[in-house]
């Protein structure tokens, strides 16, 4: 893509999210969301492939519907309570509408159906932007409207963790696996958001390096299915050894960093006297762990001298820098001993 066009689009993407972060008026927040949606649309369809165009269309329709719902909810709230300030508590009915609209924006169950299909149609870099950057703005808005409708939020959270687990079980396409992983992790964040927004932020901050690492690993191997990952031991042996750590960190196994948000969230839920919800969420993480384990089996644990599972492809030297991956992989796997410092940084 033309570098000027690319920079305009990326900067608009940044502008949109930053606008939403900085806003205290509902209309400005909505505007930020719309700007980021519009900016990412050309990025998604840059390859002019029919599948990419289909993904772009689905994304546009769902995000536009969500944005319209946000506009409607904030207008209704302004009508009922008389003010547009985000800092003031919302009336119950627009709050519920707003929660559902933001859930649709982020891809929480039960309104998650667009996410796997959209992510599947994108190339890995744009998919990375969709999974990480595009979650920030709705997340911040969700943090600020807590806690009005407790049962709805808990329902969204638990359903997302369960759907994220079960939905990913039958997938062989890596982007769909990452989509369901995103749904599950967002479910965890939502569960704790009503009690402690900093913990939700911690979960997001740990989730982003893990997802970034995974996308970058798949990009380095130029693989989009589980089968093609099986040849990565020949292309990038060191990366093949590290990937199970990243994937198990996504699954939330101690002593990797992915355990930190789960532990803190379970602690908060237990303190709030809902240990049953905590147990259900914890056990649903096992479902997600199954497909992460399966990917690591295919990639690392069945390499030679066992029989090969994939035909070896052309091994072209990658010219992209591997430093970002090195940094994010280290963060995703080894941050747990620094948990007290990380929590202190988020002023917990």
């Amino acid at each position, binding site marked *: 893509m033309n570098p000027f066009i690319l920079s305009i689009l990326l900067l608009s993407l940044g502008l949109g999210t930053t606008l939403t972060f900085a806003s205290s008026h509902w209309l400005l927040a909505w505007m930020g969301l719309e700007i980021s949606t519009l900016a990412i649309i050309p990025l998604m369809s840059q390859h002019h492939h029919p599948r990419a165009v289909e993904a772009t269309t689905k994304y546009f329709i769902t995000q536009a519907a969500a944005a319209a719902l946000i506009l409607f909810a904030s207008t209704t709230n302004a009508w009922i309570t008389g003010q547009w300030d985000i800092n003031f508590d919302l009336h119950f009915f627009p709050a519920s509408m707003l929660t559902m609209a933001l859930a649709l924006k982020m891809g929480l169950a039960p309104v998650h159906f667009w996410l796997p299909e959209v992510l599947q149609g994108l190339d890995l870099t744009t998919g990375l932007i969709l999974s990480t950057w595009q979650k920030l703005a709705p997340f911040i808005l969700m943090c600020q409207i807590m806690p009005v409708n407790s049962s709805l939020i808990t329902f969204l959270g638990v359903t997302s963790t369960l759907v994220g687990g079960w939905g990913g079980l039958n997938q062989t396409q890596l982007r769909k696996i990452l989509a369901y992983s995103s749904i599950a992790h967002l479910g965890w964040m939502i569960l704790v958001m009503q009690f402690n927004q900093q913990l939700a932020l911690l979960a997001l901050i740990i989730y982003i390096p893990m997802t970034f690492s995974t996308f970058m690993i798949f990009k380095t191997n130029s693989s989009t299915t589980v089968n093609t990952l099986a040849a990565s031991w020949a292309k990038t042996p060191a990366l093949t050894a590290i990937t199970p750590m990243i994937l198990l960190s996504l699954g939330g196994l*101690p002593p990797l960093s992915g355990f930190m948000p789960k532990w803190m969230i379970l602690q908060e839920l237990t303190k709030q006297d809902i240990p049953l919800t905590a147990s259900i969420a914890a056990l649903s993480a096992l479902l997600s762990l199954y497909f992460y384990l399966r990917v690591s089996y295919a990639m690392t644990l069945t390499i030679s001298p066992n029989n090969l599972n994939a035909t070896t492809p052309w091994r072209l030297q990658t010219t992209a820098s591997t430093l970002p991956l090195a940094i994010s992989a280290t963060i995703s796997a080894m941050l747990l001993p620094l948990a007290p410092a990380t929590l202190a940084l988020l002023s917990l």
Partner: protein
Amino acid sequence: MLKILIPTLFLLPTTWLTSSKWLWPTALTQSMLIALGSITWLNNTTDTGWTALNSYIGTDPLSTPLLVLSCWLLPLMLLASQNHLSSEPMNRQRMYITLLATLQLFLILAFGATEMIMFYVMFEATLIPTLLVITRWGNQTERLNAGTYFLFYTLAGSLPLLVALLMLQNNTGTLSLLIIPYAKPLLLMPFGSKIWWAACMIAFLVKMPLYGMHLWLPKAHVEAPVAGSMVLAAVLLKLGGYGMMRLMIVLDPLSKEMVYPFIVLALWGVIMTGSICLRQTDLKSLIAYSSVSHMGLVAGGILIQTPWGFTGALILMIAHGLASSALFCLANTNYERTHSRTMLLARGLQIALPLMTTWWFIASLANLALPPLPNLMGELMILTSLFNWSAWTLILTGIGTLITAAYSLYMFLMSQRGPLPQHMLALPPSYTREHLLMALHLIPLLLIILKPTLLWGWFAC
């Protein structure tokens, strides 16, 4: 504690920086020195009970035998793995030793932890190197299934444990093992507390394993390479027992009714898994089921919550660790020669490998709890404490002992006596390395006869 932890941690640079000629001798020497250093922990003379105590780790008479066992096992694992790894590229060999060393590190931190969450994190952390060893270096395609069963059975039990520990922290305000015995009694709810009790115990019962939840063990033990089988049988199962013993203190008075079904399951499991052993064709599978059987007895001893029960459980855990690991090493000597675990294919070995028969004999005798070996001491103490609780358990434990003797004898007779099969033409003779390995397993077991109070745990006054 750092005197042992730092050399263990630095085993990792050792494996990656030594030249390929000196890799195995260096790793072996370093781990052996660590093991010898760890024996000093057995000296528990402080009044409070906790030795080598700092803010995070400490040792007490319950954890020191298990710590010494885990440290002792690392050089033995390296000795056992040397042969089957010699054909792999150097980096893979280094990776294997790294996995074993990190497993060792996590085990030391787990047994030495004074805070329950630290114990939990390390308990779970041991799963990852073990999973990698089983699924990457195991030999048959079933190893993937074995790894999955291993990981998911343990995690399904331990995630409720995490929630239960966090609830305990909410209730008492602390999870430090130093403080919890003196904390005020728990606020109990009529039904929820029973679920909380179960959540605390299920993780460790799955790990031990208790009879109904033991399906992961035969798979994992059989598919693992020899070092994996050794560490699983000798130490990882004992993590379950150790966790149970630590948590039992907190769980009174709920335990009075709640232990009933689990003791029944444990004792029934002793008989059932023992009987299955008599019908096994796979040698490693036989030893794996024998592990379930012995650990069922340990579970019974812990759940009964008496001093003799705890003591017997601890002694049996250590003695079984050494004996079971020895048996897996012996099975591996067979496997390396015939590449088969089927007992029918590797019988009458006394004729071909007479010196190994001595070790087979001693290991089988240890397995069937011959006096004066500590296996018998452990079993007898558990038997007695169960009898004190209910005379009827004697039927179950008695039959269990009988069946244990039967399958141990069966294993010895099948593998050593009888005619040598005619296809066994070119068996390499027993290596000195293998003799050393067996000696290092069984001589400590014999030495423990002379001073079993080292392993008596809290009641060794």
